[in-house]
């Protein structure tokens, strides 16, 4: 593209805004908020799944789960780096997470109660994340779009692994099947809620669409997710816990019962089952790690000085 293109021209031409390009302050702020929230979600998301690493029922599953949680830490790193291209520091973003100024995905405020929840999170939560994130690979901000390409590739790998866990359980013993169904029962509606409030109530959406940060509405993405899950649940032999779920010939899509948006709002506001636990865990890890980070800095300073002096 031409070096002299204005922001609006770049957006209109479906090209990428890069860190040094001029951009409206609101665009920058919106992106920082969104990328940071995404990064925070990866970091907080390590907890509910990390909760089952020590108890994974086979060494192979333990390795897969550990690698997955490690990938989440990695995603957090890329995404913080992407946010930093917009002129904020990771330390400030972490502070904003810890003191509640910035959010993370509400889905991680539900507890993981059984091993099957690891499967359900992989299948449903990562599945919903992919539906949300695939369009972001074409987002107008270059560093974010590129980070999302890598993230989405790994997420789809995670989703297959989650599906495989559930498949094994659903086709295993009676107790395993029941565990899988129970997990689906608990994670279905929170997963639907991951797409956010219904379009009618969604703030920020219109402008993000115009800026090509967002490309589909919450309800469009939610529908896409439901349509994708129905067939997969059939193969699993599990029942999606929605009596209102049925194929709508006219719409060419499934009708389904909406999640409880009032509950979503309560969880976003901070009153989900695990909000306090998750943020408290992160604060404690951060505080308990302070002496280590300080030592590393002190060591680096000492030896930088030594090198200069030498």
């Amino acid at each position, binding site marked *: 593209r031409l070096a002299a293109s204005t922001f609006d021209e770049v957006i209109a031409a479906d090209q990428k805004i890069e860190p040094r390009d001029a951009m409206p302050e609101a665009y920058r702020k919106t992106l920082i908020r969104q990328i940071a929230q995404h990064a925070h979600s990866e*970091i907080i998301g*390590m*907890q509910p799944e*990390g909760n089952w*690493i*020590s*108890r*994974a*029922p*086979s*060494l*192979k*599953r*333990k*390795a897969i789960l*550990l*690698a997955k*949680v*490690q990938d989440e*830490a*990695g995603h*957090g*790193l890329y995404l*913080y780096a992407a946010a930093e291209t917009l002129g904020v520091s990771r330390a400030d973003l972490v502070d904003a997470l810890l003191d509640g100024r910035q959010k993370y995905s509400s889905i991680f405020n539900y507890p993981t109660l059984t*091993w099957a929840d690891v499967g359900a999170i992989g299948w449903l939560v990562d599945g919903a994340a992919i539906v949300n994130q695939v369009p972001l690979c074409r987002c107008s901000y270059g560093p974010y779009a590129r980070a999302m390409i890598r993230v989405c590739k790994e997420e789809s790998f995670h989703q297959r692994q989650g599906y495989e*866990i559930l498949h*094994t359980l659903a086709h*295993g*013993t009676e*107790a*395993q099947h029941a565990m899988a169904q129970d997990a689906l029962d608990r994670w279905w509606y929170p997963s639907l809620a991951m797409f956010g409030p219904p379009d009618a109530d969604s703030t920020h959406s219109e402008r993000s669409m115009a800026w090509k940060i967002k490309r589909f509405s919450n309800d469009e993405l939610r529908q896409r997710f439901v349509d994708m899950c129905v067939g997969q649940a059939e193969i699993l032999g599990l029942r999606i816990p929605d009596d209102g779920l049925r194929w709508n010939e006219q719409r060419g899509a499934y009708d389904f019962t909406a999640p409880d948006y009032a509950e979503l709002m309560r969880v976003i506001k901070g009153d989900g089952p695990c909000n306090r636990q998750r943020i408290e*865990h*992160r604060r*404690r*890890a951060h505080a*308990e*790690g*302070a*002496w*280590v*980070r*300080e*030592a*590393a800095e*002190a*060591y680096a300073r*000492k030896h930088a000085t030594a090198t200069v002096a030498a």
Partner: protein
Amino acid sequence: MSSEALELGDDALIAAQRLAEWCASAPELEEDLALANIALDQLGAARLFLSYAGEADGRTEDDLAYLRDDREFRNCLLAELPNGDFAVTMAKLLFLAAAQKLRYDALAAGPDARLAAIAAKTRKETAYHLDHAARWVVRLGDGTAESHRRMQDAVDALWPYTHELGERAAWLALVEPVLAEATLDRPADGWAPAGGRDGVHTEHLSYLLAEMQVVHRAHPGARW
């Protein structure tokens, strides 16, 4: 059953379990990645050694990991000790990785072709673990007054358990220079607790196993 494979497999498995406890609790995000990475390597090594160890009597890696109790585990006591703070974890890793490296090096050049092949893979990984731990021990030992104190406390508390690791002279040759660079005192030798190789463990191991094995044992014969 190869007792060497079992010892090395159990060391690696218990080390992996302890390292994975750090998940989402490390002092910085990069270290969450590094610890998970090392835990994954240890877990990978455990799977190879335990699979081999179980072949003789038809037991799988999961049979050995999930269906033995602590009296049947053959890991060194060091591996099962609680993580403590980050200094304790890094001292444990330094001491264990140094011992693992020496045993893997010997196996890689040894007569058992299967063990040699496994060791050829794991020795590369363990060199990285050793290096990672050594860097942290040095940074913490030579960092702030607090980190120095914590690092020295960790080294002092764990030192007795290193007598069980075997190959003392070669092991000291790997570890002592790290302590020196870290401005840490090398503790005097004295108390030398042991028993891990005979299945006489600390009181910590049975708790670790209770947690590790709970789901597997609750569903006898199930596939995962």
